[in-house]
């Protein structure tokens, strides 16, 4: 009886596991399937769970009829630019905050922490006017600068943690050998924080890649528009016709690189996410 009960428990447990996996994966699976189905199969009353019949039409549509290639390029430039800028500035600041004698250290750290909790919407109007006054409205640089609002504090916060974790002796040895603090940073500390840089950069990139509110508000037309607002506003030939197949194709195109990155860097992302949060 007991063994029976245990087996039942085990079965129930695995059913739960299957449920969690299906729940997590199915919506994306369904988007992929839908992106490969011709329109009439999409609107069937009894849709197949497999992409049958199969077509690449929606992908062709997205890249030829819509300006999606342009949007992708914009997303790459903006997210890449924001990531590189945040890492560069973030490393310098984090080294000073984590390693050097700096009297207002705590004040700056609190400021950075406060900014990670800052609601983007609260500065929307101010940033909108600032970008327009500076002639940066609807430019890549303008969008990159506005993204620093959330990528930079996060980068600094996580990197300070990495720098603090390195042993004191390394630095002292370098100083004894006559290295300046800047040389110590570049030659000794930076190579050691490599994995931290990759994780932080990846998380900053994903955050910028997925950003919607600023991209929607600070761009006009397709010149600078990134993928999220482009997908959100995908229209059909008429206002009544929503091109679900194309929307799903575009969704798959932007999501696949992210999912691949996440699968490759799984361990690091989980570590970085929890480090960023747990230390907060």
């Amino acid at each position: 009886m007991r063994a029976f009960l245990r087996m039942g428990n085990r079965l129930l447990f695995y059913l739960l596991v299957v449920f969690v996996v299906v729940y997590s994966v199915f919506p994306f699976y369904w988007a992929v399937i839908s992106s490969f189905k011709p329109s009439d199969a999409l609107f069937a009353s009894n849709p197949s769970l497999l992409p049958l019949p199969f077509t690449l039409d929606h992908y062709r549509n997205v890249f030829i009829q819509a300006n999606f290639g342009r949007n992708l390029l914009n997303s790459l430039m903006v997210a890449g630019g924001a990531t590189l800028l945040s890492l560069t500035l973030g490393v310098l600041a984090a080294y000073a905050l984590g390693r050097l004698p700096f009297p207002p250290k705590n004040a700056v750290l609190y400021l950075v922490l406060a900014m990670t909790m800052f609601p983007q919407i609260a500065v929307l109007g101010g940033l909108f006017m600032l970008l327009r006054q500076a002639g940066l409205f609807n430019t890549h640089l303008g969008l990159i600068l506005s993204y620093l609002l959330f990528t930079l504090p996060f980068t600094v916060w996580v990197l300070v943690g990495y720098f603090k974790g390195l042993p004191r002796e390394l630095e002292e040895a370098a100083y004894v050998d006559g290295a300046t603090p800047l040389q110590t940073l570049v030659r000794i500390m930076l190579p050691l924080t490599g994995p931290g840089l990759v994780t932080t950069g990846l998380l900053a990139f994903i955050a910028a890649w997925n950003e919607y509110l600023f991209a929607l508000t600070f761009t006009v037309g397709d010149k600078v528009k990134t993928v999220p607002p482009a997908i959100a506003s995908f229209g059909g030939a008429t206002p009544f016709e929503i091109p679900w197949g194309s929307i799903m194709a575009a969704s798959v195109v932007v999501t696949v690189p992210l999912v691949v990155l996440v699968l490759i860097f799984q361990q690091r992302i989980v570590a970085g996410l929890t480090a960023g949060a747990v230390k907060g």
Partner: protein
Amino acid sequence: MLTQRQVRLAWLLVLPTLLVVVLVAGYPLAQVFYWSFFRADIAFVEPPEFVGFKNYLYLLQDPDFRQALWNTVKFTVVSVSLETLLGLAIALIIHSNFKGRGLVRTAILIPWAIPTVVSAKMWQWMLHDVYGIINILGVKLGILSQKVAFLARPELVLPAIIAVDVWKTTPFMALLLLAGLQLIPEELYEAASIDGANRWQQFWAITLPLLTPALVVALIFRTLDALRVFDVIFVMSGVNPATRTLAVYNRQTLIDFQDLGYGSAISVAILLLIFLFVVVYMRTLGREALR
């Protein structure tokens, strides 16, 4: 000597970051505070006029603002509660020893990695009133008596959007809680087993108390996110009053209505709300976590 040079270097290294903070947060924020006391449009078509606290007084009696506040509170309370319960369950599942736990952890990372806009669109398609898979399967399996227009019925649209948010953000919760679970020493459970405590008792006496710090941090993060929610709401139902949250209403006022003065006042109100929440949370839960 060396120290003084180091302090100077530290200032030099922190300076660019501080400049950016002033530029993208400090200055815009000051502008928002300033203009909240004016009647002004965002393109300054007409000369701005100082009106004192008029925008704030209007805020207190604006039914749209009240509705947006109420929507935000409903969204936050329901989505964060569900995400916490579900996240805790998933974290406990992954934390127990079984074949394929790596697979589960990978699977739950997928919703996390998907851009919010994309997840909103994916679910919009799945919730489609005629061709959506949820309606088709629901009717076929007898769960739904007939197809439901989830995103058109005023009483269903917010719950539907909450369901999408829960799907997208529960993984984050689960990962944070999993990290917390992994910090609990295994010996405690062994000792409890020897003393004859069953799984359920162990959960209440060991797991939950020791998980509290991680739980508090996760709650703070998620609540802050939920209070400023914009993407999922705006993509799935635009400025529909039934779902319009503070952030959506704020953007509509500033950009669509071009009302810089009143829009800025709403921004200040959102900031105050978030500040208030942080203080209350830190005071009550934070102290408990630090004990």
